[in-house]
Every structure is written in structure tokens, then in C-alpha cells.
């Protein structure tokens, strides 16, 4: 068999890839090719990202001044709820598994597709249908409960479009379950010959851990949404305090999903970062097996800690103690990961192209987000900063600083594989640095605001908080520029970029052994599985041609 990597990137080399397999709209909308479905997801999640981003822009404009500016109190409630609902349920939860995960999982394990390609397409339609319901409620007038839907406000009193949004989350949730199911079965059954469990790339392991959470947590959220809808529509809910309903029970149900969902929103990012750091440090990952156990550990322990969202809700003090202790526990595997990334870098031949900058940014921001998480896991500190901007800053460091950096890193790392084109590295590096600076500029002041006692979810605030809010809003402008830049240079790359060749980074991993863009069935010949993942050799001459 010819080694595809050795072929010169001629025009003929681009013939017969998954992008050229069909050019009609129907060839995209009815495709069952995991790579094309990934592209569909990239389009839809990008749309949701910018809708959620527009809401964030309104929030930052409103908070530029201490008094009521462009939004009324009620309008502000609707805007931050929209921001939360869209960003959490329609962007952060699906984004990495369904875009990069969908594209890369079969390639990385040497399979022709996922186990259930039609169900894979169905997931996309479910996520679109759910998103359409959420957008309908936005256009009809919005929803004002906050993304957490706390009862009895959401189930009885709120005079906004809770039912449509909850139905949207319910439907999209099944898209998420279908994706998780597909991934788990694919990883179990479709690994190429020789691809044993401990030869799997860590990105695949991270998708496995994520899928576990999607399968076992999402149904609880779905039922919680059913209960809210039943109470609003038929009056048969179980959270009405007049009948003895317990609002804290709702919070247990909600956070049983929504805390593990935080790990849906970070584990795939950890996988991406591992792929990038090993490649650009030219080092085998330090402690591969520990990295695997840490991923699974985070996924499992992530289910034991949800009560730390409820320290001030009226839950029993004993339960708070237990949840606090368990929350500290989850820091252990997270720390293992940070230590191992650092150890992987040690004595590596490090280069700093754009993906690496994003990945290193992830490590820094995730560490800061994780450490402030320990503040919040600790009962006395949490009671001081509950419902303040400290919490807002903490979870944005994890979700935006962490996950979005990793997503951008992954997009830059695999862009040549997905499109077959190179992009301008200098523009991309500029955007990466800009994102890191803009992010810290936006969210670090919020730690200070929270510590000083500014509560979240208010449209007005005392004037002494203004300086930090202005800093934050100014940083958001920089951050927005950093997010918009890739749209430009990626579009340029796609149209006029240089051919990438099958392996522009000289990376290991099966996805780099096939052409860029990959052919319809991924591999021309059954792929060769290397002995161990990340077989980089520092100090030796690179195998690059």
C-alpha cells in the first residue's frame, strides 16, 4: 500500500475527499458521514455562540454604568438568562464532542464512521429543533428565570416563555444523549486492530468520560424540565410550596445534571490540550495512565459534588459538609492533569504556534478557575461569596477561559486536517494572545468585584464598583475582537490558503496518517496503529520531509 503521507499534495490529492463528495444542500442535510455532521455542528454551534455572545455584549454595556442604562431590570433578567441558556445548553455542552469529537473520534481510533451514523445525524436535528424552540422563546419575549430555572418562580410565577425554553432543552438533551451513546459504543467496538484501550489518544478518553456523563446525567435534566412543564401547563407539578412542594428538591434534581455538566464542558478541553501539548513539546505525555484515571475519576466524582451549589439554599448542614468534602476530592484528579501537562513540557523541544498558545492559555486559566473553585468548595468562604461575581468569574475561568480556549486550540490544531488548508500562523498567534489578555481583563476584575460583595444578576450597582466594571467591559471588547478574528483568517484560509498536506505538524495519531481533508471512508487502507500514543522523540531529527 502506498503511504499517503509521502504523496506530494497535488491537485489530485484533494480528489475524492469528504468535502467534495457532494455539493448539494441535500448532500449536507441528509449526510450520515461523521465528518460532514461535524461541519453541520460547527455551523450551528458557531451561530449559538454569537447569539449568546450578543447577549453578553448587552450585559457588559448595561454594566458599564452603575445606574440603569440601556436595559430595564426586567430586560436585564431576560438578557442574562438568554446568555446562560444559550451558552450552556446550546454551545458549551455540545460544542467539543459534537464538532471536533464527531470529526476526530472515528479517525483517531481508525474506524470508518461512528457506530450509529443515522442516530448521529438525528442528534444534530434534535439539537437544531431544541435550539429553534429556545430561539422562538427569545423572539417571543424571552425568559427571566436565570439558566437555573429555580422553582417555584419558574414553575408558577414567572410570566415569560419558560415552557418553550424548557421544551427546547429537553429536546436538545436527547441529542446530547444520542451523541454520548454513539461515542461510547464506537469506542467500545470500532477500534482498529492493535488500538488497545491504553493506546487510545487522551482526547478519545476524554470523550469517553464526557459521554458517560451525558448518558447518565442528561436524563435527569430532561425529567426536571418535564416536571416544570407539567406544573406550568397542566398544574400537576410537584414543586408548588402551597401543596408541600420543596424548592430544594428541585435544586437537587437540577444540579444532579448541571454539576456533572460542568465536566461535560471541561473534560473534552483537557483532551484537546493533551494532544496539542505533546505535539508541540515533542514529548510523550507524562503519566499516560494517570491521565486516563484522572479523566474517569473526574467524570465519576463529578457526580458526588452537586450539593456545593446549595450551601445557602437551606439544605442540611450535614449534607453541606459531605458535599464540601467531596468537592475538595475532585480537585485531586484535576491537579494531576495540570502537573502532568507541566511535566510533559519539561525538557521538551517546545515551539509556540497558535494551537500551543491556546493550549498553554488553557492550562493557566483552568488552574486559576480550579483554584478559585476550592474557595467555593470551602463552606465559610462560599457563604461570603455566594451569588456574587466571584462565582461568575470562577465558572467563566473554567468554561470560557478553559473550554473556549481549548476549543479554539483544537480548531487551529485540526483545521488543516478538516479543510486541507493552512492558515496564517501570525494572525492566529496574535488572536490567541489577544484572547488570553482580553479574557483576563474581562473576568479578573469580577473576582475582585465578587470579593467586595457585588451580587450577580443585578442591572444596577453602587458607584464604588464602577471602576472594576468598566475594566471588565473594556476587556470584553478585546475578547470580542479575539473571537471575531478567526472568522476572517479561517475564511481566507479556506478559500485561498496553502495546501496543508496530510501531517503539517508532524504529529502522531491516526488522524494524521490519512489525507487532508480525509477521504469519505477515512482511510484508504486499514491504518497502522503505533505501539503507544504520542510517540514523539525529543532530541532526534524530526521525520518531517
Amino acid at each position, binding site marked *: 500500500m502506498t503511504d499517503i503521507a509521502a504523496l506530494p499534495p497535488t491537485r489530485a490529492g484533494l480528489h475524492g475527499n469528504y468535502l467534495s463528495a457532494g455539493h448539494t444542500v441535500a448532500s449536507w442535510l441528509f449526510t450520515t458521514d461523521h465528518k460532514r455532521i461535524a461541519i453541520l455542528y460547527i455551523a450551528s454551534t458557531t451561530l449559538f455562540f454569537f447569539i449568546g455572545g450578543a447577549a453578553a455584549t448587552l450585559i457588559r454595556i448595561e454594566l458599564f454604568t452603575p445606574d440603569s442604562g440601556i436595559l430595564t431590570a426586567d430586560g436585564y433578567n431576560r438578557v442574562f438568562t438568554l446568555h446562560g441558556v444559550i451558552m450552556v445548553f446550546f454551545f458549551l455542552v455540545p460544542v467539543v464532542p459534537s464538532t471536533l469529537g464527531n470529526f476526530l473520534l472515528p479517525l483517531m481510533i481508525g474506524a470508518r464512521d461512528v457506530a450509529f451514523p443515522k442516530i448521529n445525524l438525528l442528534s444534530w436535528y434534535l439539537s437544531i429543533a431544541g435550539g429553534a424552540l429556545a430561539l422562538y422563546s427569545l423572539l417571543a419575549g424571552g425568559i427571566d428565570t436565570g439558566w437555573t430555572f429555580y422553582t417555584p418562580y419558574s414553575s408558577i410565577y414567572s410570566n415569560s416563555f419558560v415552557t418553550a425554553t424548557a421544551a427546547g432543552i429537553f429536546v436538545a438533551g436527547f441529542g446530547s444523549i444520542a451523541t454520548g451513546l454513539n461515542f461510547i459504543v464506537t469506542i*467500545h467496538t470500532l477500534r482498529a486492530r492493535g488500538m488497545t484501550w491504553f493506546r487510545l489518544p487522551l482526547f478519545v478518553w476524554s470523550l469517553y468520560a464526557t459521554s*458517560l456523563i451525558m448518558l*447518565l446525567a442528561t436524563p*435527569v435534566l430532561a425529567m426536571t424540565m418535564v416536571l416544570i412543564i407539567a406544573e406550568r401547563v397542566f398544574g400537576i407539578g410537584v414543586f408548588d410550596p402551597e401543596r408541600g412542594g420543596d424548592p*430544594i*428538591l428541585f435544586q*437537587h434534581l437540577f444540579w*444532579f445534571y448541571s454539576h456533572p455538566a460542568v465536566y461535560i464542558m471541561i473534560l473534552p478541553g483537557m483532551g484537546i490540550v493533551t494532544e496539542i501539548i505533546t505535539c508541540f513539546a515533542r514529548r510523550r505525555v507524562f503519566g499516560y495512565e494517570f491521565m486516563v484515571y484522572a479523566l474517569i475519576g473526574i467524570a465519576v466524582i463529578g*457526580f*458526588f459534588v*452537586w*450539593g456545593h451549589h446549595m450551601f445557602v439554599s437551606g*439544605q*442540611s*448542614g*450535614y*449534607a453541606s459538609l*459531605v*458535599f464540601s468534602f467531596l468537592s475538595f476530592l475532585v480537585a485531586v484528579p484535576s491537579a494531576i492533569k495540570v502537573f502532568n501537562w507541566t511535566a510533559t513540557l519539561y525538557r521538551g523541544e517546545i515551539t509556540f504556534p497558535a494551537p500551543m498558545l491556546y493550549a498553554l492559555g488553557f492550562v493557566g486559566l483552568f488552574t486559576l478557575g480550579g483554584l478559585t473553585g476550592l474557595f467555593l468548595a470551602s463552606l465559610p468562604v462560599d457563604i461570603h461569596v455566594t451569588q456574587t461575581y466571584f462565582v461568575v468569574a470562577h465558572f467563566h475561568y473554567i468554561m470560557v477561559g478553559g473550554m473556549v480556549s481549548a476549543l479554539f486550540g483544537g480548531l487551529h490544531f485540526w483545521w488543516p486536517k478538516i479543510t486541507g488548508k493552512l492558515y496564517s500562523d501570525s494572525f492566529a498567534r496574535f488572536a490567541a494572545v489577544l484572547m488570553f489578555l482580553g479574557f483576563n481583563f474581562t473576568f479578573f476584575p469580577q473576582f475582585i468585584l465578587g470579593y467586595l460583595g457585588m451580587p450577580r444578576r443585578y442591572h444596577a450597582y453602587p458607584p464604588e464598583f464602577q471602576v472594576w466594571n468598566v475594566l471588565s467591559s473594556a476587556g470584553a471588547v478585546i475578547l470580542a475582537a479575539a473571537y471575531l478574528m478567526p472568522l476572517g483568517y479561517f475564511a481566507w484560509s479556506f478559500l485561498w490558503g496553502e495546501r496543508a498536506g496530510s501531517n503539517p505538524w508532524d504529529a502522531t495519531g491516526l488522524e494524521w496518517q490519512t489525507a487532508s481533508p480525509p477521504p469519505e471512508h477515512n482511510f484508504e487502507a486499514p491504518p497502522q496503529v503505533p505501539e503507544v500514543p504520542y510517540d514523539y522523540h525529543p532530541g532526534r531529527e524530526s521525520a518531517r520531509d
Partner: protein
Amino acid sequence: MKALFRKSALLPEVAAWVGLLVLMVVSLVSSYVPLGLGNGIANLAIAGVQMLVVVFVLMHLKEGGALPRLAAAAGAFWLAIFFTLTFSDFLTR
């Protein structure tokens, strides 16, 4: 239908069905006997046994590979986490 029952291989299913119905009747009758808290416990214990019969005999889990068993166990384990930690709150109010 006669051919169905003549085959001895069908016995496990039929036996399981008889057992399930007997258990159901026992559960029903027991709930009319005043046992206090014991009523609920008996009902649930019987339901648990019925579930095991369905899962292991009728759903052929005992013949299946390790992975289906693992998946079933995962469902049970996560449900147990859900109950335990939720009740760590309600039992200690």
C-alpha cells in the same frame, strides 16, 4: 401456540412468568395485612425480586457479555448515588 410450549427450551420464560405473577399476588395480598412500615418494605423487596427475574431470565442478561452487565450496573450505581446524596440532605434536616 402448542409448538411454543412443547419445546423445553421455552421453560425458563414460562417459569419466570408464573413466578412473576405469583410474586405480584403475594405483593398485593401482603399490602392488605397491617404491617406498618413493613408493607412498603415488602412491596419494594418483591418488586426488586421481580426486576431481577425480568433482567436475568427474560432479558437474557446472564447469557450476555460483560458489557451489557456493566451498563446495567452503571444505571443502578448512578441511581444509588442520586438517592444516597439527595437523602444525605433530607434525612439530616
